[in-house]
């Protein structure tokens, strides 16, 4: 993992270069069994009296250190194991921080979590100006906090408010911002990294360069952070924000705030000691375990392969050229993501105006990107996207994705035209979110090349790609789809064709069951806040407004035909649509949106009270009103039941696909780790009892699938099955 190279004795100043290069891995991560190795290196250095300075650099192409090895936490089951690892880490980092000679961190690529904490112990930090260089403390996203000195050292170095922002959000910091924050001392070009680090070390040795170890003291800093009262105020504000955002469902940011709040009033050495126990507590908690499990399983899915039927993995063809048919926002979004990953991308739309909008969307996207990573770094990606009104040149594409409006006949026409011009090797994909794939591809001559690629909006942010296979889709085509997912950095799940596939189907249940709740007399606010209170990022009614009520209803009707006993579209929805009440896009759905009436431009959306006129319940529920949480729990269970059915029917190949698809695809409460893990954690028996009760009260949507009954009966789990 570590290579030590010492300058010859005659060189002055004589430096040691430590190269971090974990064997057999693409990126550097820090695992517990590597800690003794670091100690050996530090011992060796201290035994070399002539060494006047140290440079710490990575041997990997585009990572410095990507963090601690997540497998460690996943495997650790006892508090002792975690605390020991934490203690060892602290001991080594403290040794680094106490080094008698200057240590310069030379950072290029991802410098995350423990990697950044390691660099914080150095005397001086230099990073490259590459777009690959990102500094962050993303621990909170795994239900943890930077417990290897991060929470103690960072506030002291860059200031309390800035440190809180980084630690509580896990946000990525780019080189320019890192310099401004004082997170790094110098930004240089990639080629200059090592020479610049050596030069800095030489100047630090000579005393020409004084390392800066604290933030600039301006008036706000002195008033807010220079005294205990100001610090309390800052921390209280931060706590309020966290509570608003997490609804108390995620313990990590609150624990981090607590550790920071207590530690900041203590000397560093004392503050550091607070980290270990708090960290272990979180690492053993269910939330972190769920989030870490999602992270690991998503990484595993990224590595999945397709079998050729004889036990061999099929090598997928790379997509060098991508053709899109249909230039809606989805098409444009897919284009920018593909182009950023080096894929030549063409957008075809049949009319000038939508094409101009699509290309305008692409332009605007790259303009924004240029502001964060620099113009030169987006030039190539932007050049890779072009648009046209014809399918000329589509015969040169490796993959063609259709993203025209959701109309079966239109889609069939597109594929008939495509098949007439492209060679047999071209993979043809539909981005439909709900139309039956086998029907779209029914008239294709070569059905093996046809596959569904269901993207999620906004594509640059959403991590999932749902790959839908029909009974004809060939292994070669699936392998190409997986390879494409890898190319564009998305986590793929492969599901079978069926009404709504997996994600759209379960999402349909989430949305329509919420409407039934309105029909039953619950208010829109109760339902949305209930869902959010149990961890859904967006309430179902708000989501329906966002998706578009017409779009949602169309999908739900398809599902209603397939599963009439469990899902119905309330008839009132049609009168909604007839009124032009389509959701956010029309300014009015269940909510009224600012600017809809041409008056109020700003402010929050508000529930349109007149919606209740459409529902017999009119928002009035006699007798006891359940807690909103209960509504949230019920919605979650309806989704979980439907997810189990997808597994039962073979739509899903595994609970892992189901969990990742649910959390990344439609926002199933992430701290539950997905529906299957959720049930496994609570126990299938407990859930079965609960849905039996609910079914008695609220009907077939809560009907328990046979598979759940079986698992409850066998007292096992989905994971173990």
């Amino acid at each position, binding site marked *: 993992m570590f290579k030590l190279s010492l300058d010859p004795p005659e060189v002055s100043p004589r430096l040691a270069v430590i190269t971090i290069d974990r064997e057999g891995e693409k990126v550097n991560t820090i695992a517990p069994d590597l800690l003794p190795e670091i100690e050996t290196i530090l011992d060796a250095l201290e035994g070399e009296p002539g060494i006047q300075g140290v440079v710490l650099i990575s041997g990997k192409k585009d990572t410095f250190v990507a963090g601690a090895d997540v497998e460690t936490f996943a495997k650790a089951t006892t508090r002792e194991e975690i605390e020991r690892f934490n203690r060892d880490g602290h001991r080594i980092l403290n040794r680094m921080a106490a080094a008698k000679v200057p240590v310069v961190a030379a950072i290029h690529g991802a410098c995350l979590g423990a990697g950044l904490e390691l660099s914080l112990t150095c005397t001086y930090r230099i990073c490259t100006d590459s777009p690959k260089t990102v500094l962050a403390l993303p621990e909170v996203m795994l239900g943890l906090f930077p417990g290897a000195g991060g929470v103690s050292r960072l506030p002291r170095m860059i200031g309390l408010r800035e440190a809180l922002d980084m630690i509580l959000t896990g946000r990525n910091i780019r080189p320019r911002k890192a310099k401004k924050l004082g997170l790094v001392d110098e930004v240089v070009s990639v080629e200059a990294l090592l020479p610049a680090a050596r030069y800095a070390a030489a100047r630090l040795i000579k005393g020409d360069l004084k390392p800066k170890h604290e933030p600039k003291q301006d008036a706000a800093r002195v008033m807010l952070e220079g005294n205990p009262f100001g610090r309390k105020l800052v921390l209280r504000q931060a706590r309020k924000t966290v509570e608003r955002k997490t609804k108390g469902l995620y313990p990590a940011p609150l624990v981090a705030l607590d550790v920071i709040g207590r530690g900041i009033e203590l000397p560093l050495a004392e503050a550091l000691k607070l980290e270990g126990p708090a960290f272990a507590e979180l690492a053993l908690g269910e939330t972190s375990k769920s989030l870490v499990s999602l992270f690991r399983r998503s990484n595993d899915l990224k590595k999945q392969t397709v079998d050729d039927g004889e036990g061999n993995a099929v090598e997928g063809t790379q997509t*060098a*050229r991508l053709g899109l048919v249909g230039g809606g926002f989805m098409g444009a979004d897919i284009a920018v993501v593909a182009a950023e990953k080096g894929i*030549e991308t*063409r957008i075809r739309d049949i009319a*000038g*105006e939508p*094409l*101009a*909008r699509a*290309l*305008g969307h692409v*332009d605007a996207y790259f303009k924004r990107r240029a502001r964060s990573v620099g113009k030169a770094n987006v*030039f*190539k990606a932007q*050049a*890779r996207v*072009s*648009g*046209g*009104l*014809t399918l*000329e*040149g589509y*015969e*040169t594409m490796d993959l063609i994705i259709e993203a025209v409006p959701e109309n079966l006949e239109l889609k069939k026409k597109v594929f008939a035209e495509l098949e007439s011009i492209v060679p047999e090797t071209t993979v043809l994909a539909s981005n439909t979110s709900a139309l039956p794939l086998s029907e779209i591809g029914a008239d294709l001559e070569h059905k093996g090349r046809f596959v569904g690629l269901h993207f999620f909006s906004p594509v640059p942010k959403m991590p999932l790609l749902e790959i839908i296979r029909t009974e004809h889709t060939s292994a070669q085509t699936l392998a190409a789809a997986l390879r494409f997912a890898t190319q564009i950095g998305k986590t793929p799940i492969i599901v079978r064709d069926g009404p709504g596939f997996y994600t759209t189907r379960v999402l349909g249940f989430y949305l329509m069951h919420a409407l039934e709740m309105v029909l039953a007399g619950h208010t829109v606010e109760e339902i949305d806040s209930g869902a959010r209170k149990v961890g859904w990022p967006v309430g179902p009614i708000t989501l329906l407004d966002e998706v578009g009520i017409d779009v949602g209803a169309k999908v739900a009707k398809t599902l209603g035909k397939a599963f009439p006993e469990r899902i119905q579209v309330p008839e009132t929805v049609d009168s909604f649509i007839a009124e032009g009440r389509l959701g956010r896009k029309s300014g009015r759905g269940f909510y009224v949106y600012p600017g809809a009436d041409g008056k109020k431009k700003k402010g929050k959306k508000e529930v349109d009270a007149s919606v209740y006129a459409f529902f017999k319940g009119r928002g009035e529920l006699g007798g006891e009103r359940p807690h909103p949480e209960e509504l949230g729990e019920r919605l979650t269970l309806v989704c979980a039941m439907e997810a189990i059915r997808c597994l039962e029917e073979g739509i899903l190949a595994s609970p892992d696909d189901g969990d990742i698809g649910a959390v990344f695809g439609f926002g199933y409460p992430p701290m539950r780790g997905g529906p299957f893990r959720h049930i496994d954690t609570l126990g299938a028996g407990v859930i079965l009892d609960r849905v039996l009760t609910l079914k008695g009260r609220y009907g077939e949507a809560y009907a328990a699938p046979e598979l759940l009954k079986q698992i409850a009966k066998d007292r096992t789990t989905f994971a173990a099955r």
Partner: protein
Amino acid sequence: MKSRKVRNVAVVAGVRTPFCKAGGAFVRRSAVELGAAAAREAVLSLGIRPERLDQVIFGIVSAPVGAPNIAREVVLQAAFPSTIPAYTVSRACVSANQAVTNAADQIALGRADVVLAGGAETLSDVPILYGRRFRDALFAASKAKTPMARLRAFQKVRPQDLAPVAPAIAEPSTGETMGESAEKMAKDFGVRREDQDLFAANSHARAVAAWEAGHFKGRVAAVSAPKGGSGLQIVERDDHPRADSTLDKLAKLRPVFDRKVGSVTAGNASPLTDGASAVILAAEEVARAEGWPILGILRDYEYAAVDPFEHLLMGPVAAVARAVDRNELALSDFGVIEMHEAFAAQVLANIHGLGSDSYCREKLGRSGAVGEIDPAFVNQWGGSISLGHPFGATGGRLIMMLLDQMAAKDAQFGLVSACAAGAMGSAMIFERV
């Protein structure tokens, strides 16, 4: 060592952007962007991957200050493999012709198999210069070592020195503009105003008809351009051809270069235009092996120059004469003739020169005239007067329109002629096989 024979060169694809009036739809598009659009669309229209190109050559007249070798920038802007070498040529209005003939030579001699040649021009964004005195001061200031010295460099600068120098289209040698020269040619060769206006009116009518008939389908690509305010628009058509250009209207326009007894007007001259074109050439044997369409073989070409102090735009006569003589062809052998229309007066003067025994004897040392051409025979789908004339790009348009008309008429031979500043002319002979 393996010996190589000279190979036949085929045109296999060609696409241009719409041509738009300077200051119009492409006002915020650079020549590089327009060139890249044409290049990319040409490659797509042939259905090949850009990796297949061995070289890219582009022509331009008013090269961008920041990117004098625009061909290379076109390669990068079009996201072609960065390993494709590229260079830029400049020979006034026949720059794209030059790019094409250079490409053809490379292929004929076996140094390349597939070359993309084109041209681009934007007159919406010409470099504006400061006067000499201010430029000298800036230069001196950049060399100065102290702030005081830097200030001193500007001591001699007067307010009037800050006025920009407008780029001229006048000849550096004679000081004469093209329009003035066209005017002179009209007078010397007896080209009447009515004939010029008739020619221009026909040019517009033909261009409009060609668009309506769909003759440009697949040859003019839709190109995006920023529109006023924000967002983009898709430009699909040339914006200059006018369906309402009548003789009456043209007759009412005042002469520009000789206001009293002149005949050259804005209506019978080509407009300042933005646009780009790209043509893909390949060795005939390669094209056949790949199954690419062979639109025509470039049989021969010629560049000629005459004395700019006499007639600036008579170069085509000399070039055409030499090209047909060398190939033992007569003008009547050409089923299609495309002549660049800088001015109606110039086209008519060129036709007059070709058909004049005395001109050909005196100026070309021939025994007699090259041959007669009916002005109505040339440019049957419109020309530079109606379609517009982005200097560096027109050559690509002429070639593709010639080849498409040859196919439509099943003609064996076709001729492209064009005049260029500096009193030069170009001729190209194509054959369909």
